[in-house]
């Protein structure tokens, strides 16, 4: 199974572990992430203003490229996933966006949101299956207590993201069980870490991040996992906790014995 892959700016630099282990684990599970040629940065923030068109075009180009290859489009970074999935929704449902983007791009075949946008976790759940993943685990993480940190971008707005129940998600906990560890449920797992304002308002970002780390620790976690490089930075650097934070792909690779 070959899937188009959009790594995004951060996975080529500060977030390399998320990418490297994700690719290795994919091979061990029998699918290949084929990096899109000439992808452009998604912009990291979904432009919410109704009249924004140009700022969404890099996502549209990636979506068109995957369609032309006849492949699903997979992302690992929460932010890329969020932006590309929502832009795809606009290309499907917003006639103004559809018209203007297509007029501007002058494609041979107009694009109307046909590409399937999948987050890596969705590939594990819906294409591979957590039961199959469990069978492929060679080094189960038995005894480890892992707190899944969802944050904002994977889940909300649920009408558009459609990944999981936004208030009581299970996909990451099911993932944790599949690699042999025990999920730790804590209240703040889908609350915002404040990473967005770390450049300008570090104290505020730190306050939000510490609340999450403290909550995970108080519930007995021995580590936290995330799919977002910005959450990773904020929880680790600003969270003021001794609890380690990993990308979920790091633990996946470990369990599959490809780390």
């Amino acid at each position, binding site marked *: 199974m070959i899937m188009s892959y959009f790594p995004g700016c951060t996975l080529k630099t500060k*977030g390399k572990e998320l990418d490297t282990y994700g690719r290795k684990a994919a091979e061990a599970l029998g699918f290949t992430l084929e990096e899109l040629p000439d992808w452009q940065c998604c912009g*990291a*923030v979904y432009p919410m203003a*109704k009249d924004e068109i140009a700022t969404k075009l890099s996502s549209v180009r990636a979506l068109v490229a995957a369609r032309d290859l006849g492949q699903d489009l997979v992302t690992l970074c929460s932010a890329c996933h969020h932006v590309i999935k929502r832009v795809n929704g606009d290309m499907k449902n917003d006639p103004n966006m559809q018209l203007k983007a297509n007029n501007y791009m002058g494609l041979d075949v107009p694009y109307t949101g046909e590409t399937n946008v999948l987050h890596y976790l969705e590939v594990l759940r819906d294409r591979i299956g957590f039961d199959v993943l469990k069978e492929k685990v060679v080094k189960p993480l038995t005894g480890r207590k892992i707190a899944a940190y969802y944050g904002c971008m994977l889940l909300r*707005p649920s009408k558009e993201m459609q990944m999981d129940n936004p208030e009581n998600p299970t996909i990451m906990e099911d993932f944790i069980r599949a690699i042999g560890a025990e999920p730790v449920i804590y209240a703040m797992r889908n609350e915002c870490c404040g990473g967005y304002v*770390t*450049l300008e308002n570090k104290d505020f970002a730190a306050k939000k991040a510490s609340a999450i780390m403290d909550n995970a620790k108080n519930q007995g976690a021995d580590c936290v996992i995330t799919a977002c490089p910005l959450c990773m930075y904020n929880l680790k650097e600003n969270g003021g906790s001794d609890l380690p934070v990993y990308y979920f792909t790091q633990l996946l690779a470990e369990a599959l014995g490809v780390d």
Partner: protein
Amino acid sequence: MNKELAKQIQEIAGVNPRKCMKCGKCTATCPAFDVMEYHPHQFVDMVEKGKVEELMNSKGIWTCLSCMACIERCPRSVEPARVIEAVRVAVARQQGMDHLKPEQIPALLDEELPQQAITSAFRKYRK
């Protein structure tokens, strides 16, 4: 009060503040409500009433975390975060009102900061 500007902001937001039933759920769920001088439900109310200049001058528009909790939890689909984004965009589109300038960035960087943080700061503030 600036009716024309208020109308523009409503168009940019693409949501209807008149649907708001003033339940305050958005503010109750907002992780940044205590650092915004106008809370999310007040934003919606003020845009409806055309009091957009106060909002455009408020620092709180830059502390909204765009976490989308208010969008998810609003029982009336008012989507307050879109209203706040529209006010930010209106400010950013006015000439000379850039919030974060490229020259400021190097001093804010550290070894571990992901590109994503820089990209998002730019996108949020600058056209």
